[in-house]
């Protein structure tokens, strides 16, 4: 990994320079562009040769940690290997060149892949129907909660104005509830990591539209009383929404539909290994039980005999509507399809097995090395939470300091400070694609940092030392906003 800072691309610009092989020939005149609409000053875009552009962005890529270069145990993100086949096959010319509005009879190959993906997702989730259109988990959540709202409104039940969310929930959950016009009701989590049933009972009532849950929860433990939770919520007339972020822990072993969930989203960029791309694109397919089928967002793929086509608003008049201009992140869906075909029915439970094995192995090794588990009496699922509260108090070294020092050891840090409930926490998810040796190296690095925190704490507090930049001043970043490059006058 090169550790040289790279100037901003505009600093390479020279007037008149450009990758002219990529440009069409100059057009003689512009037939119908009214003069008053013409652009008056050219936009600020780089003027560089093709080699300069390629070299610049290649060098920038080398400044990143990524799954392909580093162990990346971010909890709740499922940073597993993104198979190259998924990328190559999703980008076959026949799929890549197709316009989204091209006629269905000439897209049967694509539609077959999407239909089969819907069916496989139904099977692993235990849901009755799936829509592939939401473009990320958050959009999937929006669709799910909007469907809950549509369901209650169709029944004429307008009293249900609240969504219940455990206090440990991921931030998208309450943000989504608000976007759908609901009020939030937060309930606490008990000391053992499960939802406090008494608090749940107290929160339920005729005002309850539903509850949003993850299982395993954001605390890295399985909600043991989920069947009871589902019964209580249904009895009160509410519906259960499943946040599928942690599906990797139970893939092929437990189905959210069987747990009592009425609606869910899946994160195809987590469980089904589509690339994270530096912040997307993802795909947040949604699944529903029979009750909510009429409300699924469109378009959905259907099969009629041997032919496939899209169902849209005309076919599904009660749908909550469209979420994207076209049919969502098709390329991502194709990658997930290839991955699921490579896993097959045998491979899915194996994913859950090895992901869980890896997380429990890490938990055992870290505890042995002197770290505190947040829930020491519980099994880890596919991820685990440790708390550095003691170290923060005794050595004045925080979870953030540990995270930054791990970068110097050539590993991406785990998730820090989430879940919010556990102070000074690290949420660690190794995934099933990591070997035992990698996990041992991680534990060794953590032990070394702990040792260093005792003997030379300044090294840890001032980390990272070996990256292209030192720790960045984010207070300055927010106060002195520098969000675009400006030429020096």
């Amino acid at each position, binding site marked *: 990994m090169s550790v040289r800072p790279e100037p901003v691309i505009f600093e390479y610009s020279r007037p008149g320079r450009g990758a002219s092989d990529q440009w069409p020939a100059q057009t003689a005149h512009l037939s119908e562009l009214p003069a008053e609409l013409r652009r008056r000053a050219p936009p600020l875009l780089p003027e560089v040769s093709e080699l300069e552009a390629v070299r610049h962005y290649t060098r920038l890529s080398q400044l990143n940690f990524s799954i392909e270069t580093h162990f990346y145990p971010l909890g709740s993100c499922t940073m597993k290997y993104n198979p190259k086949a998924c990328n190559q096959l999703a980008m076959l010319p026949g799929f890549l060149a197709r316009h989204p*509005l091209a006629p269905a009879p000439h897209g049967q190959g694509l539609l077959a892949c999407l239909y089969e993906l819907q069916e496989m997702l139904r099977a692993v989730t235990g849901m009755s129907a799936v829509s592939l259109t939401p473009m990320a988990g958050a959009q999937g959540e929006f669709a799910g909660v909007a469907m809950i709202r549509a369901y209650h409104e169709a029944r004429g039940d307008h009293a249900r104005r609240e969504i219940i969310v455990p206090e440990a929930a991921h931030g998208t959950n*309450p943000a989504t509830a608000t976007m759908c016009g609901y009020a939030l009701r937060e309930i606490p989590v008990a000391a053992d990591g499960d939802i406090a049933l008494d608090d749940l009972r107290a929160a339920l009532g005729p005002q309850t539209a539903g509850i949003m849950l993850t299982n395993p929860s954001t605390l890295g433990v399985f909600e043991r009383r989920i069947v009871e939770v589902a019964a209580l919520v249904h009895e009160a007339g509410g519906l259960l929404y499943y946040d599928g972020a942690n599906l990797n822990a139970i893939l092929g072993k437990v189905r959210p539909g069987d747990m009592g969930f009425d609606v869910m989203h899946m994160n195809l960029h987590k469980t089904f290994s589509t690339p994270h791309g530096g912040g997307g694109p993802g795909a947040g397919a949604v699944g529903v039980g029979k009750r909510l089928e009429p409300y699924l967002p469109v378009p959905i793929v259907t099969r009629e005999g041997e032919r496939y086509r899209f169902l849209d608003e005309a076919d599904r008049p009660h749908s909550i509507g469209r*979420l994207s201009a076209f049919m969502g992140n098709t390329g991502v869906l194709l990658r997930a399809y290839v991955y699921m075909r*490579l896993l097959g029915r045998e491979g899915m439970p194996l994913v859950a097995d090895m992901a869980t094995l890896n997380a429990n192995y890490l938990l055992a090794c870290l505890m042995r090395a002197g770290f505190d588990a947040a829930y020491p009496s519980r099994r880890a699922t596919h991820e685990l939470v440790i708390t550095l509260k003691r170290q923060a108090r005794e050595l004045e070294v925080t979870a953030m300091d540990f995270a930054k020092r791990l970068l110097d050891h050539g590993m991406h840090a785990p998730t820090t400070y989430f879940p919010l409930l556990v102070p000074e926490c690290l949420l660690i998810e190794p995934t099933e694609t990591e070997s*035992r040796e990698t996990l041992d190296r991680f534990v060794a690095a953590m032990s070394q940092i702990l040792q260093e925190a005792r003997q030379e704490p300044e090294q840890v507090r001032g980390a990272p030392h070996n990256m292209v930049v030192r720790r960045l001043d984010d207070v300055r970043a927010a106060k002195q906003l520098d969000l675009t490059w400006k030429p020096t006058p």
Partner: protein
Amino acid sequence: MAFIPHTAADVTAMLSTIGVERLEELFEEIPRALRIETLPGVPAALNEMQISRLMSERARSDGQPLCFIGAGAYEHHIPAAVWAIATRGEFYSAYTPYQAEASQGTLQTIYEFQTMIASLTGMQVANASLYDGASAFAEACLMATRLNRKSKSLNILVPEAVHPHYRKVARTVIAHQGVRITPVPFDARSGRTAAAALEAHANEDITALAIQQPNFFGVLEDVDALSQWARSRSIPVIAIVNPVSLALLEPPGGWRGGADIVVGEGQPLGIPLASGGPYFGFMATRQEHVRQMPGRIVGRTLDLAGHPGFTLTLQAREQHIRRGRATSNICTNQGLMVTAATVYLALMGPQGLERVAAASHERAHRLIAALTRHAGVRRAFSAPFFHEAVILLEQPVAPVLEALAGEGIHGGLDLSRDYPQLGNALLTCATETKTDEDIERFARALGELI
């Protein structure tokens, strides 16, 4: 299988370290009744050779037709370097850049992207992307209500000449927050939204006005008049624009009435049609509105040693901190597409992008001229257009398109469902990718069908 490295020996050793005998014990907290033993709905695993063959057959069966469809997604030449770089593992398999020191590549790329988008749109700041143009428009509607708190109506004027799917997506997203859309008709002769049509709302409490340039029909709106109508009434303007067209057209920041929020579909910037996605939505705004803008934003700052570096900033607006009071619930966005678009714009530069826009404009005019040579085919609208236009046939469009598709030509979009008042209307497009021979082939085939 499943890309799992563990051998039986690994598993045994690891179980021993954990202190259990069997893997099953790790799942003992899960109620037995919930456990499934088989997955009947999932086929047996394929190896890479087998799935490659299946996918190749399916991709081949869809063929590679000649595409004249626009309607919000446009075929442009994409330099090979764009995806060679974007699919580098360091960009492709990196996460959201929360640990800034380990993500300077992604962060700097986004900073450069923000700079390019801000300049293209004539605004001062841009975000790191939203899902697509339609959802970006929905987010812009919500942002406009936050900017214009004085307005209580939550009523946004949206011309009917704005992309029908954008209006549908906006309705789906904003309905639950009490925001509504009021349509503004277009002039049947010109295809433009007349400022006179806005006059019907002159004394109402309007929260915002949306203007799409070029509009869904490809027609160039009188953006100065429309934006000025809004500005003179202190109504915020949401501009929806095609980023390639901005190489030739004055951007919203320079419209007579200006704009407050600019959004659009970024797909034309180096993103393949790819059957509909992933694309990306861009959003830009004025400096003073930056805290109301959803999505991620990258800023440049200094590190402990006083050297420049990049980091996510203004995160307090986002879901992972503000939770229920966040500007949006957006988390994952379209990072990889932004990387590709940034490389594309660096390769094209101002000259190259202008050439693409100009060539597309010229090709589309040649196409319309060729098609309207036939009796029975005429232009629907009189106003100037950018790179797509509506033509009217004297017979239903659907069977004509079906027959053309049978000959490997995708002729355009049938508008009869979304705009029945236009009659037998077809929206057709040509970009710099279409040669004289391509256009002749389409014109000849159409001639034989009508």
